[in-house]
């Protein structure tokens, strides 16, 4: 386990916990930046450099800015707090711990090697597809681009039709719809009867 992994993992986890704990929205946003940035670091460590870059660009650079704008537009004061009742917090914490414990137990309970072997036997695969190719380490941009265009050079024996052209197109249309919808929803309206 590398040092970097430990640092990023701890930063991500602690950031997330800090988000939960903080009462101020602005602080939550700050801790979220920490957490998401650390996750981007984890992505780089996992040889997913394009995803990591996208994480930084879209999440940290885009979504977080959006959230901060949202805070600015809606906050009635700089340190506005809307506290939850303590009972709710305790219950949520207990349930969260139970959930965490359950997921941990599940992760530890799975035989990952065995299941990988069974999958390979079932799909008659002998070689390759054992994870991302080390030889093209740090260079995932090209395969991802091909995959989104519907071509999969990284797959042995070139299974036709395994690409993501259609989901790619749907996602693009989806983004367009969201763009229009969000603009429509958020446009400035003057309400007469403000509650």
């Amino acid at each position, binding site marked *: 386990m590398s040092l970097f992994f430990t640092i990023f993992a701890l930063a991500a986890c602690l950031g997330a916990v800090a988000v939960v704990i903080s009462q101020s929205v602005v602080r939550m946003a700050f801790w979220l930046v920490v957490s998401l940035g650390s996750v981007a670091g984890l992505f780089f460590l996992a040889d997913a450099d394009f995803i990591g870059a996208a994480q930084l660009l879209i999440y940290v650079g885009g979504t977080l800015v959006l959230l901060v704008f949202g805070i600015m537009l809606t906050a009635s004061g700089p340190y506005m707090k809307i506290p*939850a009742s303590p009972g*709710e917090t305790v*219950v*949520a914490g207990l*349930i*969260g711990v*139970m*959930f965490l414990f*359950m997921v941990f*137990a*599940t992760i530890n309970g799975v035989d990952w090697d065995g299941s990988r072997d069974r999958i390979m036997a079932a799909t008659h695969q002998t070689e390759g597809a054992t994870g991302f190719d080390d030889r093209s380490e740090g260079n995932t941009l090209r395969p991802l681009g091909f995959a989104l265009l519907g071509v999969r050079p990284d797959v042995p024996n070139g299974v036709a039709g395994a690409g993501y052209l259609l989901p790619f197109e749907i996602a693009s249309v989806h983004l367009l719809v969201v763009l229009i919808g969000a603009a429509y929803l958020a446009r400035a309206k003057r309400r007469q009867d403000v509650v």
Partner: protein
Amino acid sequence: MVGETLKFWLMIAWLLPLAGFVVEIFFGFYSKNPRHSKAAAWCAVGCIGIGFLCSANALRIWGNANEWCVLEAAEHGDPGDTQADAGHHETDSAEHQTAYSGVIYTLGVFGSLEVTLDYYIDSLTLVMFTMVTLIATCIHVFAIGYMSDELTDEYVDHSAHTSDGGHVHRPGRFYRFFAFMSLFCFAMLGLVLAGNIFQVFIFWELVGICSFLLIGFYTERKTASDAANKAFIMNRIGDFGFLIGLMVLWTFFGTFRFGDTVVDEQVVDQGLFSMVHRDGTGNVARDEVTGDVLITDTHGHVLTNEDGSNRQIPYYLLVVIGLGIFAGCVGKSAQFPLQTWLPDAMEGPTPVSALVHSATMVAAGVYLAGRFFPMFVQEVLLTIAYTGCITLFLAATIAMVATDIKKVLAYSTISQLGYMMLGIGVFGWAAGLFHLITHAFFKSLMFLCSGSVIYGCHHEQEMPKMGGLLWKMPITAFTMLVGVCAISGFWLPFGLHFSGFHSKDAIVASALAFIHANPAHFMLFLIPLLTAGITAFYMFRMWFYTFVGKPRDQHVHDHAHESPWVMTVPLLILAAFAWFCAYGGESGHLYLMLTGDEPSHLAADVTAATAGGINLPGHAAIHAVHDDAGRWALIAALSGALIAYVLYGTNVVNVEEIKRQLGGVHGFLANKWYFDDLYDALFMKPAHKVAAFCAWFDGAVFDRILHGAAKSMIVVSKWDRVFDETVVDGFVNLIASATQSVGASLRVVQTGRLRQYVMFIVLGVVALFAVMFTTFPG
């Protein structure tokens, strides 16, 4: 061809009154001022008058076609040589067709039953047509005057009372009276023209309903409406027998037609009359083994069924047919024992009594008996004879004490109808129908005279209030005297005998010949002879009572006046016919016309024949005793008239004293032999008792059952309501409340708080996993 022509003219005469009826009843109803217009009357007179002309024309055509063969007997007839005369007549009839029959209109065909309107025209039909239309025309004209007080918007009926004791005020019904009269003429002529017995029945009922309408014309009078009901109900009794006869007739003969339908000299449709064959002695053809009556074709050959057996009818059923048809005649002609309705029918207006209840409708019974004569067997004829005999005596005795001028005439009518029936029953077919015609004339004359008296005396009908009216209304009085002499049967020198002399003579002669052949039935001669005297008595009594002597009621006498010309002219016409219509007697035209198509069971030259235990006199036998009978009858009539003169024409004897001394007999007669009381006790009272019992039973038993059922229904429905409200409603409410409470409890979960929902999701996931781990460990 002649048949078609005759049919054409007679159908015009028949249907014109129907058209008149339609016009009068509807135009009278809708026209602007029907209460004051005499248009309806002239329309009716026009229709029936044209009908008379058509009938006369038809008679002329018929006579020309057969060269008046039936009258030739008169020209070279020799009263002393009747056999040869009759024989000649037979041959003439054989050469010339005198009877025509055929179909007018087919109403419908039901299987083998063919319901048609037929016509049957022979000399009897033509004479009846002419007589009915002539008399009806005279009476219609008379009625214009008689009914003129109906020409008002507010007619005050002094004989009808409202509930508060006042007189009934109503609009006049002038047009309605004439509409009903036209309808009656239509029905009566249809009856005469009818070519089958079923058609006769239809028109039989039609004249019945017209009679009902006309008797009840003054419907506000209780007596009038009761009399109308009585007439109708009494006739239903007779018609019931008529229907039974029709059923038997149809079952065995399969046809209702009288005559054969002949096309190109081929019989295409055999009628009833030729189906019962008779031998020279008047016996019907019978099966030698079973005794059943054989049904034959026109040549006397026995008809066979499809299986080859002879068609035949049991003899007793032939009797049933005859008695059934005769029962209808008894009802319609008011014979014993159904005679009680006719005197009550005098509640109608007097022209109605003249036309319907003396001249035509009541004579229809006699006409039918004559028309159906070929089907009657000896037992039936004997029944007819005795019924007529009883009736004529009964009615004549009542007429002796009646005081209402119209009641006297009504009983006289019954009595004379009895004479006709007797004539037919004792085998004097021609005599009976001869009397029918003459009686129609003189009786309608007398009724019109009485109508004139009533009109002149301002609707006073009681003879004890009259008297001394002779020079107040001379035309009425003398025409009435003609009628009285005619009905009494008086003889005058130079052959100017009154018509009644000839016709009654013929009947009495037939009766005398009959008892010569059958001494056991001597009553059939004695009673008519005695009654001839009684007839003269009560008729002269009526005349003396009304026209001579001192005025008994000065008020009535002072206001009496002669009727206008529209009423006296018909009297004069009818008086002429009543006197002279039978001119020549049995050598006269009227008698010969009637006998032209006489259905005789016997060959003309047979003196007497034995049939069914009864000896039948032939024409020759009747003629042999004719002068004797005429003498006896004349003596009886003259003595009756003399007694009447002594009692009522002079003041020699105190009538009241006699009445007092014979109080028992007088009361018995004045109460009409207690027939009404007898029927009241025999039928009305038991019917009332039964009805009262039924009413009681209805109230006590049926109502109780119904009330019990209703009450139990209420109890059941109360329980049903409880069940409904507790069980059914409870179940439904339970489902509803359960749904509601489940919803209410689920409502608690739906907090509307976002964070709780998230918590639920997580809890759900955790729980799912927990279940998965515990269920699939490893």
